[in-house]
């Protein structure tokens, strides 16, 4: 198997008594888009900073592109483009100058810098704003310029910390599509952290859910939902044109179909949970009974549910153990 491009082993970071990152193990292969998901303050940014050698881990190692990020940060930073969550630019300089400065710091020959910066501006769709001062940029434009800034050094890995923060929904879609496309075209490995589940779900090959400094689970979205909801049943909700009568004799007939566990009727919607996927049988049944079916919806579990489920579990755990780091909750309620 190919050597992983990012390999974290037992990575731990303590700030005093608080464990920001707790014994984290993670491997990311080349060309993957990995989503690091977690609520605010889960330790995502700390983890990323450790990967870049900007913060020293308390224990463990972070190997990026085959270099140890703690002992050899310069080599890592040559290969990795990082966009911080609150990306900022030198306001007195134009967008192009900002890009060119970063290019020069990365040792791009002077003759190529202008061309390359132009090309980056074109890729991110800001070709008209090349000579504008960055102080006049909107948040979304800055975010895109941040991406150009990351790409100009032609990295092997790009790490984006909350890249979708502060962009409007359509902008987010384009931004993520662009990242996805770049990753596929050039074999870029992408690590993006976010607390926006839906967005991550759109582009990531694999996600890791990260709460309280611990990686709770990782894998593809499908795998996660399968693991998590094995005990759950298939739930099919069928919308009818007219609400079925309150005391409905067809219920018993439905139960005869087998595998049906529970039937709930709310207004015009019949929700049926069953052990196996018997959606076609159900529809056939309704049609046979002469009921007008307006819509059939099979419930699928998305990242939201997964995330919520894990987050719930973790919260429950915290409450029973009363971690010393979370005392603010208690003291708050005492007042």
């Amino acid at each position, binding site marked *: 198997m190919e050597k992983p491009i990012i390999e974290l082993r037992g990575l731990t970071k303590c700030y005093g008594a608080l464990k920001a990152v707790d014994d984290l193990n993670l491997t990311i292969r080349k060309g993957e888009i990995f989503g690091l998901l977690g609520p605010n303050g889960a330790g995502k940014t700390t983890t990323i900073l450790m990967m870049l050698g*900007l913060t020293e881990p308390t224990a463990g190692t972070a190997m990026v592109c085959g270099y140890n990020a703690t002992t050899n940060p310069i*080599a890592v930073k040559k290969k990795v483009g*990082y966009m911080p969550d609150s990306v900022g*630019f030198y306001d*007195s300089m134009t967008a192009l100058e900002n890009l060119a400065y970063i290019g020069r710091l990365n040792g791009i020959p002077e003759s*190529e810098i202008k061309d390359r910066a132009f090309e980056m501006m*074109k890729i991110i769709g800001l070709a008209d704003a090349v000579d504008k001062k960055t102080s006049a940029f909107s948040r979304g434009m800055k975010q895109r310029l941040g991406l150009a800034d990351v790409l100009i050094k*032609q990295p092997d890995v790009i790490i984006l910390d909350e890249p979708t923060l502060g962009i409007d929904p359509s902008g987010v879609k384009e931004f993520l599509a*662009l990242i996805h496309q770049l990753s596929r075209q050039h074999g870029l490995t992408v690590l993006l952290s976010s607390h926006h589940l839906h967005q991550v779900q759109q582009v990531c090959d694999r996600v890791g859910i990260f709460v309280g400094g611990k990686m709770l689970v990782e894998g593809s979205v499908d795998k996660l939902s399968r693991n998590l909801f094995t005990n759950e049943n298939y739930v099919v909700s069928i919308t009818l044109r007219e609400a079925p009568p309150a005391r409905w004799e067809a219920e018993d007939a439905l139960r005869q179909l087998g595998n049906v566990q529970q039937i709930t009727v709310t207004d015009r919607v019949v929700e049926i949970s069953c052990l196996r996927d018997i959606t076609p049988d159900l529809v056939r049944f309704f049609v046979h009974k002469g009921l007008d079916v307006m819509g059939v919806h099979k419930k699928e579990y998305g990242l939201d549910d997964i995330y919520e489920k894990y987050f719930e579990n973790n919260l429950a755990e915290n409450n029973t153990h009363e971690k010393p780091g979370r005392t603010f909750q208690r003291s708050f309620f005492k007042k």
Partner: protein
Amino acid sequence: MKNLAVLSKGLSLKNKDYNIASGNHVSPSGPFRVMIGKEIADHIRSWRFIVLLLLIGLTFFGAMHISLSNIKTAVSNIQDPDRLFLYLKLLTTTDGTLPPFHVLLSFLGPLLGISLGFDTINSEQNAGTLTRLMAQPVYRDNLILSKFVSAMIIVSCLFVSLALLMIGAGLLITGVDIAPQEVLRIFSFIFLSIVYVGFWLSLSILLSIRFKQTATSALTAIGLWLFLTVFYKLLVNLVIKAMIPDPAFLSQEQVFAYNGLMGSILRLEPSQLYTDATTTLLMPSVRSLGPLTVEQMALAIPSPLPFKESLMIIWPQLSGLLAATVFCFALSYYLFMRREIRC
């Protein structure tokens, strides 16, 4: 809004065979020089620097105008052993309307240093550029070093060009040749002034690392400056007066000892060091910075000292200023290297 994905289609990141900068192929100017270049450009383009430049320029030309109009009386004053040093006279002569240039500089120098340095690190941090910069393949100390060096380069250029302007104007107006000793003295004075500004620069860089808000660091630096120039002397006098016994009951040696002690305490303050040193350099007849007894002065002819002797007198002052500068810079270096990059 344009569709980014569509726009980027067909464009490729690596379609042109750019030389990808690798470890052994770095552009001729390393990142450190690039950073210095950017910092200098930033300074020169900023309004702050233009205002400072105008201020220093005005002071300089004001002082020069006054000294030039009084140069005749100063040079023909037989009582003055320094009267033959025309160019030093240009720097020190005054008719009382404006203090001479070197005294003005002891006030303006700190202002120059503080305003060039008070927002070095915290403004980068507040703008969010610090993390972005640190994610590039540059060493962390390159940043702070480039900030310091670029400001020093600017200050040095400013002072050296002012000195050369002064010498040139003097040559044109008076037609008197400049003596080698005067050149040495003037350039030592310039060097001293640069070190003095460097001290305030490194102090303000230190404060900019320590405080997150630029306003706080600027105010603290100005507060320190005011305290040292105005209140420190006052405070020392007050305390010493309260401590020492009545001079009437003291022998002469004891009075000298107390005076010496007071002088040493006053010299903890950098502007005192600077004033002492520049006075000695620009007025060759100054023989000592402390009090002299009548016995020591007996039979001495009031004549200018050679350059080397003046330099020996101010050696402690010079090394003190350098030490203070280096100390502040080392401390800020230490703080910056150890700190968390984001908070």
